[in-house]
């Protein structure tokens, strides 16, 4: 693993080293490299093979699922069909929960971005008393046990007659999204050169105008990162949804899936897995296209 060290050296040195390494490629090194790549392959398989398996299962007929794995229904089945995907929408009416989830996740993201940008900017730039305490509280709220909030919020929603509606979820999900987004944006605003704002202020802009016309445009990448993370966190909730929602057409997608494909005699994994594949797709796409952003967002300001 010493090579891991040499790898980050300045380019010429690293190149020289690499060349030297190549010349002296001993049998031991070859074995080491092979083992390393083998380990990488195993990790990738463990991470991704289960996805292949649900994709495969989702493309089977009920009878094939019932027959078990093996023979014509082996790891690569001989017959595939999209019938489960049709059934997810026709029999299980998955469309409504899917739309519900999209509405809630997008609305949560929008609210988060507005609220977190304002707070992030204020905490980074405007000299408020108690900045440390406020930041500490926001962090603590992010650690607050979800299940400890559910009971009282349930009672409040019941009192307001707002149980079994997706809209309260938009507020409740902020507990997932606000802490990370506020911290992320605050850290980002701190890094924007102050000269940009000073110039605008000297030109007679108000602080609010500076925020809107100067800071926000510069902060687009960070805002985008916060939005992606917020969307993922809101999309992924299960605990609040399962506690507050009771009828199928108000379910969010993750909750709806848990009610699919169960009968007294058989679990229809093709139906379940078709729904699982469908709700995985938006998240998988986000990860593939925004991997770098997500990683930097997750780790922003963690170790400073």
């Amino acid at each position, binding site marked *: *693993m010493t090579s891991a060290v040499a790898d980050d050296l300045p380019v010429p040195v690293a190149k020289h080293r690499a060349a030297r390494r190549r010349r002296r490629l001993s049998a031991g090194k070859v074995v080491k490299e092979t083992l390393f790549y083998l380990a990488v392959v195993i990790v990738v398989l463990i991470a991704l093979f289960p996805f292949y*398996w649900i994709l495969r299962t989702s493309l089977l007929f009920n009878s094939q699922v019932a027959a078990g794995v093996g023979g014509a229904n082996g790891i690569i089945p001989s017959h595939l069909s999209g019938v489960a995907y049709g059934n997810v929408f026709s029999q299980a009416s998955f469309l409504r929960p899917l739309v519900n989830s999209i509405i809630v996740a997008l609305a949560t993201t929008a609210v988060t971005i507005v609220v977190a940008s304002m707070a992030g900017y204020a905490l980074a730039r405007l000299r*408020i008393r108690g900045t*440390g305490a406020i930041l500490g509280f926001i962090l603590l709220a992010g650690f607050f046990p*979800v299940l400890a909030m559910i009971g009282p919020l349930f009672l409040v929603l019941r009192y307001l007659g707002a149980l079994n509606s997706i809209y309260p979820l938009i507020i409740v999900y902020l507990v997932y999204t606000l802490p990370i987004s506020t911290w992320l944006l605050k850290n980002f605003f701190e890094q924007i050169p102050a000269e940009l704002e000073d110039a605008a202020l000297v030109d007679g802009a108000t602080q609010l105008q500076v925020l809107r016309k100067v800071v926000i445009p510069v902060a687009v990448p960070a805002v985008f990162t916060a939005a992606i993370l917020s969307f993922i966190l809101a999309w*992924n909730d299960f605990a609040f949804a399962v506690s507050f929602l009771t009828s199928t057409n108000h379910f969010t997608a993750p909750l709806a899936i848990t009610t699919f494909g169960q009968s007294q005699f058989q679990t229809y*994994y093709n139906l379940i897995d078709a729904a699982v594949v469908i709700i995985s797709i938006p998240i998988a796409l986000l990860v593939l296209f925004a991997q770098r952003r997500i990683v930097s967002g997750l780790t922003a300001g*963690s170790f400073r």
Partner: protein
Amino acid sequence: MSVNQPTGAEGRPARAGRPSLARRLTPARRGPAPVGHARETGDRRLGYLLVAPVVILLLAITAYPLIYNIWNAFHFENLSYGGLPHKFVGWANFTAMFESPQWVAALERTLVFTAVTIAFDMVVGMALALMMHRRFRGRGFLRASILVPWAMPTVVSALLWKTMFDPGAGFVDYILGAFHPAWSSLSWLGISVWRSWVAIFIADSWKNIPFVAILLLAGLQVIPNDVYEAARIDGASWWQSFTRVTLPLLRPAISVALIFRTLQALLVFDVIYIMSGGGPGNSTETLSYLVYNTFIINTNIGLGGAMSIMLVVLALAVSFIYVRAFRPQTA
């Protein structure tokens, strides 16, 4: 999520917010004129206005339920919703909780699950972080593959592994059966307690190890290379440089990962609900699951409140211990 270490330890930001314009332009501008001062108070007023929504919203979602729970825990003894007759019942709900074998069993289970999960996730996460840190062809692909399980909803990871472990449709069953006929058609969820835990544990780790790995990777990336170079010149072996250089410098990243994973494991709910529903019997019920069951299903808001408060106390205690243990030594 971002955790600023010094903040946790001392309640102050590591870097104070940038001084406002007025402050930055002093002393050249300020002098005796009140303009700077006025501007500063203006800034401050705007600042409070901008911060207020976050604070109010988060208080409403966290602090309010906490207070409500405390009130409920001391005022309801029966199975009822609020609004029904209630009286002050003292510590009755807490006594009932501590004397309930079901709760004590759930507590033990949760603590064991947390300990095992953390140990396993940290070791594997570290290995993955070192793997991703190395420069090689296909590193981007490796990172994306590792990130995908983390980003998935727990519903996906739980149902995916439920499929994998199914005696009929599952890959695990298929592959075990290929090794030994007696190992096939095993029911993983619902009959055997330890097999249920294995399935839950794997589903949980599969989803959460990537997060540990990403945090540790970020920690690895900020360690300057000359430190390693120095260690190498001094003749340190790989293991020596890992234990004497990497691990100590990785302390902040490790502490962040530890806090996150410990709290997640301590509060585990979704994966249990979806995979086993607490069963077989009550054997996979965790503290969070029990709160859900007591409060939402049985509508016992007094006992449920007491259990919720215990969750908060546990979470606070854990955060406090970690923040103490990982307080920066030099600060």
